[in-house]
């Protein structure tokens, strides 16, 4: 067992974990943050995407011990002071989700992407989402959701 300390959604957690425990399982099973989903075994689907030290990463391909000393934000911590993140708003406004399973990872990826590129083209958005599978929406409304969020952020509609 190894002791780790991870700051998750602003709160510090110290836990004893097996080295083989994945960060995704740590978040879900130890911290009960079940908004991070697991959809595959091969680091492909992106459902488990979270932010770690300011970067969008796939928590199913990272060990909990690797996150020792890191700051993690999950979907549960993306809204601030009860205010949804513009990407969350965008997904609701533009029907960017159906079953909701890929959605949390998709939102985390998109939020990171807009930090890097606040004014993207459609092609850039599609390229940026290549690590996240959605089987419900055909991506059409996901792209629109991200565009909506980009507009909202640039116009300062939502802080």
């Amino acid at each position, binding site marked *: 067992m190894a002791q780790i300390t991870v700051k998750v959604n602003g709160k510090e957690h110290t836990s004893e974990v097996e080295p083989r425990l994945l960060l995704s399982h740590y978040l*879900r099973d130890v911290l009960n943050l079940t908004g*991070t989903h697991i959809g595959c075994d091969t680091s492909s689907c992106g459902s488990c995407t979270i932010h770690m030290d300011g970067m969008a990463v796939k928590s199913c391909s990272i060990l909990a011990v690797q996150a020792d000393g890191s700051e993690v934000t999950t979907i549960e911590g993306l809204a601030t002071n009860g205010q949804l993140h513009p990407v969350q708003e965008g997904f609701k406004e533009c029907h960017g989700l159906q079953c909701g399973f890929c959605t949390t990872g998709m939102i985390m990826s998109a939020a990171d992407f807009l930090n890097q590129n606040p004014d993207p083209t459609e092609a850039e958005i599609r390229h940026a989402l290549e690590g996240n599978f959605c089987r419900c929406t055909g991506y059409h409304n996901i792209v629109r959701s991200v565009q909506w969020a980009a507009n909202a952020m640039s116009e300062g509609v939502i802080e």
Partner: protein
Amino acid sequence: MSNKYIGQSVKRIEDKRFITGKGRYTDDIKLLGMTHAAFVRSPYAHAIVVSIDTSAAQDMPGVMAIFTGDDIKATGIVGVPTGWQVNFKNGDTMKEPPHPLLVATGSTVKHIGDPVAVIIAESYAAAVDAAEMVEVEWEDLPAVTDPMKATQEGATLVHEDAPGNLAFDWELGNPLSEVDQAISESAHVTSLEFVNQRLVPNAIEPRAYIGQYDEVSDKYTLYTSTQNPHLIRLLMCAFVLGIPEHKVRVLGPDVGGGFGSKIYHYTEEALVTWASKQINRPIKWTETRSEAFQLDAHGRDHVTKAEMGFDADGNIKALRIKTFANLGAYLSTFAPAVPTYLHGTLLQGLYTTPKIHIDLQAVFTHTVAVDAYRGAGRPEATYLLERLVDLAALEMGKDPIQLRKQNFIPAFDGVDQPGYQTQVALQYDSGNYHGVVDKAMEMLGYEEFRRMQKEASQNGKLLGVGFSTYIEACGIAPSAVVGALGARAGLYESAQVRVQPTGKVSVYSGSHSHGQGHETTFAQIVADKFGIPMEDVDIIHGDSDAVAFGMGTYGSRSLAVGGSAIVKSIDKVLEKGAKIAAHKLECSEDDLEFDEGKWTVKGTDKSISFGDVALTAYVPHVYPQGLEPGLDFASFYDPTNFTYPFGCHIAVVEVDKETGKVKLNRFIAVDDVGNVINPMIVDGQIHGGLAQGIGQALLEGAIYDENGQLINASYMDYAMPRADDLPMFELGRQETPCPHNPLGVKGAGEAGCIGSTPAVVNAVIDALWSGGHKVKDIMMPLTPERVWTAMQQ
């Protein structure tokens, strides 16, 4: 009735929990004392289980229990059943070999992943570690995976009592001799032999189950990622475990997509339920993606020979089909219905073809079961028809749209004009097929496209356009009809509308959402019908203890059947409400009109609100004599016919001459799904269907090798559409109401998936012809290599 919500793109109520990570999927649930299951599965497609030694596994830390096939066999549990019976042409009953929960020693496993033992342990890791310690001795046997080879003489048998590996054979349509004659008299016959490949559904949420037994009440609870909780309860109780239904509660929490694959009753559901009593602890099993590839029922997998005969003017005179449908190793819940009543019956398409015959061989192979996958049978029928018509146009030098239109069934509304009786059993409800084509063509700008195509061709580029028109049969359907066709269940839906004393409304629906937005669409209907705000309506689904009964969500049926059941209950509420209102307003019911949430005495300003009537019903101090208190009605709605959505899809592609890679430049879809309650949600359903249909055309396909190994069983090897594989979709709509249900709706869940596949393939073929490559067919998925190879010939 008000018109505040119906027809509006109301934002979804369920989204709030999903975008904040508060959705509750089965794997998110933790129960006190919960244990975890892992399975020991066959690495072979066909092998005898010679022996199993669990002793080493037994000693592993955290192991609670191990059950093998022999343990299950000893209890007398035979296995999971199928829900549909199709008989052989000669009247013999179909072959329905048992599908055991775990394969016992001395028996044979029949596809990779077939389980032989289950380990239950304190943690998931402990269960997986112990499962590896189980020693199984296998005797590897030859396997058969191709449905045509499986029917050949001397082929290895999947089940000893199914000679020739036939589950059944079947035919439908006009007498074969008449069709043969019509084909032989045709001026032109277009023929194609092709494979409609096997697809893996790939809902992003893997299946997950939790079985929980409560000693005190002697009651079981099953949490399951299912599309239809009640059906699972019915099948599991009555046909597998022999537990009375009132002792089982099935809960379907949030479900992360299904596309058909979560309709069926899987062995693991029964197993965790049964085992939870043996160990008296809750048991969770969540499938890995690798297991999902091997175990979740696949879709399609037809090998077909198709011929279409035309007269000299291009009128379709006959259609003759011979299909081998691969059903896999076991008959899944709806498997027998898919290639027959959901496929053969759709071969009329939109055309007036006078003579049609299909001959079908339904075949067992050493592969996982094939069952309904988005569209189920109807995509196969549409693919076949639309490939034939398009190829015929190329062969005869006719315009593909004109050829279609000249053969279309004329418009009919199903009210003043009767429904259209096909040669293959169905009667279409209402249709205006020219309308959707004209609209789609306008969106395309056909002449401009052909000009661009010519120009591109002169510059050495390959542009192509592909058309597809389709009709489907949805809203499955009248129980009497499906019963006659072999369904072992009715196909109605139930709904209860409970008006609370405060005038707030709880609706209990037997339809179950796995992404379709029932909580929003149903609430829109209820709110408008009662003239109340949507916030006053709550939709409850997915709990067999709360909801009277349900047949679930598949076949684009929730709104047409489940929504209609809700309307039936609403009507009952309003009828009783009128009695109460009349009493309170001291008038006759006939003098009342209900609008905007209140009953008003016609021609006066005397009225009583919906809320006041509700309160009166529960506080019946001033109340009609003899009338029961309360305002709470349940209904069962059994439709009188299927519904028949239809549409026209157009794909525009560019083919890279050097590599064969296809780029989808545009996709236009004009769909007529009847009346629309929430356009935003309907568009979303179409989008998703399109992506899956396009995925079949260009990317997807399960590959079993000759030994029955699924060699692309991961996301590293099985390609699915990603955001950058697809363009923005261009949607159009026409609304021809369904004449036989109260909402006039037809269903939208599968439309996109049905129409899109042939449109894309036709577009690629058109692109190749524009460059002088007169290719008849390319096998799906149209990988760059296949397209490039086709161009080399």
